[in-house]
């Protein structure tokens, strides 16, 4: 087993250790119902995390994911529920805006961190315009889907597996995925071979936008209502999830399955801390400590690569 394997295994090991600790403290969590409760909020986080992964994969970073997912949740809880046509049109338009944002960042050579930070205020404002006070309701089919009683494994386990595997096939196995990762690895080489980096970047942002829309919809399906600030934490959670899952900030090195596992780990860390009866004042800090611990472990595995 080489370091590369260890590195890929690390997200799974951290999840397993955390899960074991949770089961030790609360054996009743070890059930269909318990697992569903532990992980169901991880579905939207996982979707936001793979969206962030699409952006990190091409050496950019997206600081607007949190407000954008909130915006999508607000649209889902209002328009999609009352006027589905307008609702889906708004969401489709938002995906196009995302793709356009990627194109502008490339053409104007703007730093993604600045553009997405600016856009985060735009989405936050739009969300408040659509839903000034918490409320709205989930479309019935969405509610049914998110709370379905599937045989053997709860939705909260099946959904992340589906997300992880399908993104793995898209990013790691498909020809388009190779090109997108190539943009992160050596943009010049892609350009020299005659591909349009502009188009590839727009595609990456567009797919990220689509995943964020799905994340917002899943969130409404679970929470049954929305709020303009419902997903603000997702920006940082998604970045942490990608990195926790073995991804890198630059160089196009990402792992979709790892990112999903990273998202699960972060969600579980929050539950773990509540089981510890830790005062909520300390929870954010303790969550950070878990993150630092895992990243420090990864640093040991990747030190060899840094010397190349």
């Amino acid at each position: 087993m080489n370091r590369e394997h260890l590195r890929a295994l690390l997200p799974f090991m951290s999840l397993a250790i955390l899960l074991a600790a949770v089961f030790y403290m609360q054996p009743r969590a070890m059930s269909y119902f318990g697992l569903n409760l532990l992980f169901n909020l991880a579905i939207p986080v996982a979707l936001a995390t793979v969206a962030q992964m699409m952006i990190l994969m091409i050496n950019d970073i997206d600081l607007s994911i949190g407000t954008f997912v909130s915006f999508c949740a607000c649209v889902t809880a209002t328009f999609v529920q009352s006027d589905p046509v307008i609702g889906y049109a708004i969401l489709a338009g938002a995906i196009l805006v995302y793709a356009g944002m990627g194109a502008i960042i490339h053409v104007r050579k703007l730093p993604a961190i600045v553009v997405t930070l600016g856009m985060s205020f735009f989405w936050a404002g739009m969300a408040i315009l659509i839903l000034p006070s918490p409320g709205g309701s989930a479309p019935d089919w969405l509610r049914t889907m998110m709370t379905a009683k599937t045989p053997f494994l709860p939705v909260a386990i099946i959904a992340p597996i589906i997300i992880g595997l399908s993104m793995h096939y898209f990013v790691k196995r498909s020809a388009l995925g190779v090109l997108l990762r190539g943009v992160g690895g050596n943009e010049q080489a892609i350009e020299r071979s005659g591909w349009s980096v502009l188009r590839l970047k727009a595609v990456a942002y567009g797919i990220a936008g689509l995943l964020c829309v799905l994340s917002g919809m899943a969130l409404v399906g679970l929470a049954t209502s929305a709020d303009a600030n419902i997903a603000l934490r997702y920006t940082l959670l998604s970045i942490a999830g990608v990195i926790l899952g073995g991804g890198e900030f630059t160089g196009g090195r990402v792992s979709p399955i790892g990112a999903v596992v990273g998202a699960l780990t972060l969600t579980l860390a929050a539950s773990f801390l509540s089981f510890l009866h830790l005062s909520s004042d300390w929870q954010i800090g303790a969550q950070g400590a878990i993150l630092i611990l895992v990243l420090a472990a990864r640093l040991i595995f990747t030190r060899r690569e840094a010397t190349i």
Partner: protein
Amino acid sequence: MIQNKKVIGTHEVPIITLAEVAVSFGAVKALSDVDFRIMPGECVGVVGHNGAGKSTFVNVINGRLSPTSGIVNYAGDNAQADFRNADRARTVGIRSVFQELSLCPNLTVLENLRIPYRNMPLKNWRKEAGQVVKKSLDEIFPGNGINPYSVVADLPIAERQMVEIAIAFSQRDIDARLVILDEPTSSLDGSIAEQLLSYIKRFCEEGGSIIFISHMLGEIFDVATRIVVMKDGRIIDDNLVSKFSRDTLVDAMGHVVPDTPEIQVAKKNRSFGEEVLRMENGLSARKGEIIGLAGLAGHGQAEVLAACTLARSSDWLASRNPQVVFVAGDRARDGLMPLWSIMRNLSLQTLVEFSRGFWINRIKEASLADRWHSKIGIKTDNLMNPILSLSGGNQQKVLFSRALASSAPIVVMDDPMRGVDVGTKMEVYRMIRSEAEKGRTFLWYSTETDEILECDRVFVFREGEIVSELTGDEITEDNLLRTSFAMQESIQ
């Protein structure tokens, strides 16, 4: 030969023809009056010193650069003023291996084939790509043992270069007909390079063509059927390999750059002080001496300069008695503070030397700037103007003043004359010489031969090592070329 019989693939039609091609970037002429054609089965070696226009030349051929004037013909059809030259080059089967590695390090070997192979069939592509790369690798480098499923970043540099070459020769929907290899053996060891050369010969026998750029003249003589010699953006000689010998080739590369008599006089009768610098690789310098670091660009000179500078300066504090100062060649990266005024840029190096205590001595700073303003002739009426208001040459003068104003006994210069006009160069040469006479030591890396000719002693670098040391009358363009290009392998 029958004129009308122009069918692709026959031996009568050149793969590419350049007629009176010129490329200029602004006022700089990178290429002029280039006439060139390559027939199937030919292997053309391209040689020339730094800045001779080799890379511009190959970039016109592979279509990445469109000529400013002149005509480029791909396998018969006319593509004048067509901005899609790169597509045409690809459809004719022209492929390139660039000097700097152009693989995506985060992808696997077989995934890297996907990038240049634009119309790859999507069905089951991984398996096929793996087979294609493996076949190509085995054909060129038998016994290589590279796994097409390994990630490129995990391969050693030599294997990465092998992969890149194998991908360039790999089988795709359009067959490779002309492959441009720019220093393909730079990271390969002898036996692997030998495998490549014999593959090139086989490839040409089967009707493929190669453009081969190398600083190893032995390799050129080994594989090339024709040699093109470039200098100053022109093709100055284009002949069958049998018409050249090593000596005539070196002569052709370096036509006369006569030393000005003034320098010759200045160079004579100079005596130097004690040795002030000696490095592990053999580089040494005496007080008052101008040391040249020569050789082809990127053969380790910049690294030696950096090592020399860093070893003699503190990471933490600027010294009041600095041992060494540095003049940057890449102004934007290493030299200028683009938002600062001319004065601030000029005084940066010497702030500590001329100030006492915590505060900057503004009066001394201004007088220092004024002194150098008149001494070196910076063309501005107000030193508070932003540095970017100056021309490139004048910006470089500011960087020179910054270094020369310091009391440091050693001045390290990293190709500082890049993009500087002749007038400024002459002024700076004179100033360097007079400073040297006052006892300063200069370490001068330059890619321009006439600058190296100004030096008292020259170390020629090749592949990161000093391959020869020239002094006095030995410093000639001839000798520089002879030592910059590897000669040791004999013709078989």
